[in-house]
């Protein structure tokens, strides 16, 4: 147990060091500017006086190290500085936005991760069957399509719907997919490969497709057809309203994240299933269920946890684009706006928060991987 704690402690230590170094990088990246921040803000035709005044106000005349340390000091006390553009304290704005983003990300994670793990395991178990191949193709498409594309498709399917006349190309694609599914189902029935779960999934997919046309589940409220594709999150919306307003962005995130995670899970499980000790279990006559649960799974925790952590880290980046599409008032949207306005202090603060979350997640993944390694749990 001692070596375990020591290793975990080392990882923790490295994680914190990394955070510090990242903060240094984020802060000092600004120093790379040719010219200086004041010049950037006021533009080319600023007079020397206004430049000097701004520099003074921003404290740019102090040496960089001092500025970094005071910035860091402020952060550790919860003060993220002031916006370059509005001058208002960043922390006030960030807290609310961060909360929204976390809500969205958590919501998406809770749905996506179990779904992806389940699909990944199923695909690994039934590998090279039509089920596996279909899932592989669909997820490959999902991770290849830009998030905004998926977002808008969802808007079309669930919010706005589309009339028959302008759905030409979509109809072609949908028909193609339906035919492929049908062929797959018939083939599976012939070779006896079907399992109930796979049929259920095919039906669900069909229903979603048809919803675009018939809108069984209209996620709109009359009369404005655009709601809630542009989420309206007021400060004191109650929980139910929050969920309702977040469904479409959440769904987008879920789709992309599930695809990504499912592929990683599948790869890891296939890797484990081809290990010699699994072959040995087969040769001992162990039934398939026990092979999965008693032999494979205990060895799968570490890679699966790794996958989950990577997924959560991936979510952090995915959130940015999704928030932009749905104009969701989260941290990602704030970051994008700040970049457009060259509000550098705001950008630094947002980047730091995102980076911190990323580092923390990776660090936890490392620690969990250590904690589930049988060689470390039972040392020589």
């Amino acid at each position: 147990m001692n070596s375990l704690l020591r290793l975990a402690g080392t990882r923790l230590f490295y994680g914190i060091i990394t955070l510090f170094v990242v903060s240094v990088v984020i802060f000092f990246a600004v120093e790379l500017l040719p010219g200086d921040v004041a010049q950037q803000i006021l533009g080319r035709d600023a007079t020397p006086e206004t430049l000097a005044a701004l520099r003074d106000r921003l404290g740019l005349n102090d040496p960089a190290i001092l500025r970094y340390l005071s910035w860091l000091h402020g952060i550790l006390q919860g003060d993220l500085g002031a916006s370059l553009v509005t001058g208002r304290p960043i922390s006030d704005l960030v807290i609310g936005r961060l909360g929204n983003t976390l809500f969205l990300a958590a919501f998406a994670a809770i749905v996506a991760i179990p779904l992806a793990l389940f699909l990944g395991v199923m695909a690994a178990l039934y590998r090279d069957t039509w089920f596996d191949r279909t899932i592989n193709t669909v997820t490959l498409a999902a991770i290849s399509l830009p998030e905004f594309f998926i977002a808008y498709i969802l808007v079309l399917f669930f919010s706005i719907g589309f009339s028959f006349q302008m759905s030409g190309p979509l109809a072609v694609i949908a028909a193609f997919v339906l035919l492929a599914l049908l062929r797959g189902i018939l083939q599976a029935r012939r070779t006896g490969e079907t399992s109930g779960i796979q049929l259920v999934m095919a039906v669900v997919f069909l229903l979603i497709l048809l919803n675009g046309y018939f809108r069984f589940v209209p996620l709109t409220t009359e009369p404005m057809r655009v709601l809630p594709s542009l989420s309206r999150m007021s400060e004191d919306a109650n929980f139910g309203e929050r969920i309702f307003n977040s469904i479409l962005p959440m769904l987008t995130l879920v789709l992309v994240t599930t695809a990504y995670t499912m592929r990683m899970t599948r790869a890891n499980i296939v890797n484990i299933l081809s290990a010699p000790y699994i072959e040995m279990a087969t040769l001992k006559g162990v039934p398939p269920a026990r092979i999965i649960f008693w032999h494979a799974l205990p060895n799968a925790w570490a890679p699966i946890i790794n996958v989950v952590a990577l997924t959560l880290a991936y979510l952090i980046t995915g959130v940015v684009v999704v928030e932009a599409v749905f104009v969701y008032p989260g941290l990602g949207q704030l970051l994008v706006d700040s970049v457009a306005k060259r509000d550098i202090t705001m950008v630094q603060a947002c980047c730091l928060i995102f980076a911190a979350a990323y580092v923390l997640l990776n660090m936890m993944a490392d620690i969990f991987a250590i904690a589930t390694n049988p060689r470390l749990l039972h040392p020589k």
Partner: protein
Amino acid sequence: MAEPPLLEMRGVRIEGQTGPDWLPIINGVDLTLAKGEVLGLIGESGAGKSTLGLAAMGYTRGGCRISGGSIKFAGQELVGATRADLRLLRGKRIAYVAQSAAASFNPAHNLIDQFIEGPMIHGLGDRATTQSEAVALYDAVQLPEPETIGFRYPHQVSGGQLQRAMTAMAMACKPDLIVFDEPTTALDVTTQIEVLAAIRKAVSEFGTAAIYITHDLAVVAQMADRIMVLRYGDLVEEADTRRMLSAPQEAYTKSLWSVRTFEATPKPASDPAPLLQVENVTAAYGDLTVLHDISTQVQTGRTVAVVGESGSGKSTLARAITGLLTPKQGRIVMDGKALAPDFRRRSKDDLRAIQMIYQIPDTALNPRQSVAQILARPAKFFTGLSGKALYDRVDDLLALIDLEPGLFRSRLPGELSGGQKQRIGIARALAAEPRLIICDEVTSALDQLVAEGILRLLDRLQQELDLSYLFITHDLATVRAVADSVVVMQYGKVVEDGPKAEVFSPPHDPYTELLLSSVPDMDPDWLTRTLEARR
């Protein structure tokens, strides 16, 4: 003797898939096994022995399929049987012992849980009884601390112990047949003899039939009642062990048996000057000392064999001599002049004088360079040849190693056999015109016939070019064949060092004694005798 055979395989055909093609692995082999009989399956690598052994359980590895023939176990047809039927047989009536025990045990569970899994699934008893049976079997295979070793995890147990634990696990359900797939190939000789003893005891005690797969002729002579020789998926010969050993019929079988008779050309009695001297070398990797005060020497034109088991430090000694590992103490002296400890500080002439040939031919040659390129580079680098002179030199080198230049110049390593690749490795060393060649287990990865060819070549080159060899190996038969003097190493120390005749005749250092006596003979009674002698 009208009892039906336990296992009856007729006309078995197995194919394997590479890319879009299906290629044959087994071409219509017949195999019969009676109850309690031990059948040895020998052949070189690629003969299909493992595939055939697994087929006895109705199992094929991924990418393989049984394309013809019948496999009957106790009258039940296995080809085309349902998975459920096969599951009932496997583990319960037919068991398997794999080559690598470390990979075949699940790292997440302890040994005893994996032992009792078999009997529990097949409904052969409750947990308590099975556990006590496990302890009894662990004792039967002579594992230390049989009561508690089961509660250890695979990584907490040594390789030889794991192999015995796997044998015990195979016996858990008292099967009728056990397939042993090269169980001792990866083990040192001193460990191997214990595992062989354990297997033989377990098999005879329970009257289990066994298929013993190996490429080692001496081992199969100990374990099997009957021997089948396989080559490229075909059965070459089949006979009782004693008859096959004394009077093999087929040319191929004869060639396998005669392999062990090669002896290097005897050297003149003169005592040549020492070429290389290792003086009190101590070396370490970080905190771990791997060589302790090693001193030895190699004389011009002679072969020094360095023999030891895994962890003895023999390969590390080679690295210290070539300068890849800087010794903490001591020095390497060549022709009376001390060599720089780090190879980066050695002159070109110094680097050229010592060349190395490696164990695994596949990793020793750059797969993207042709034979001509591989040989031309050192020739050009060290002897400054170019143009036509270089071209001719490459041809000369190829002729030296008995390969036809026209056929082999433009080939890539992927288009060569293992033995040919090793020959190119030798030629590459020769291209530098060295004085000393370090052969690091150069025949260990080759089949015995091919290995003998390499040894003959090395012997001839030594005669023609007055080369000195430092021959590193774990195989005592090779040492007997090629060495002029022998250095025995254990745990980074020199245990014995002297002319071959002296080292191989008593009195011995206890470790040398152990090592010599653990090497299997082709005599079927060797194991029994040795175990008796040790008691």
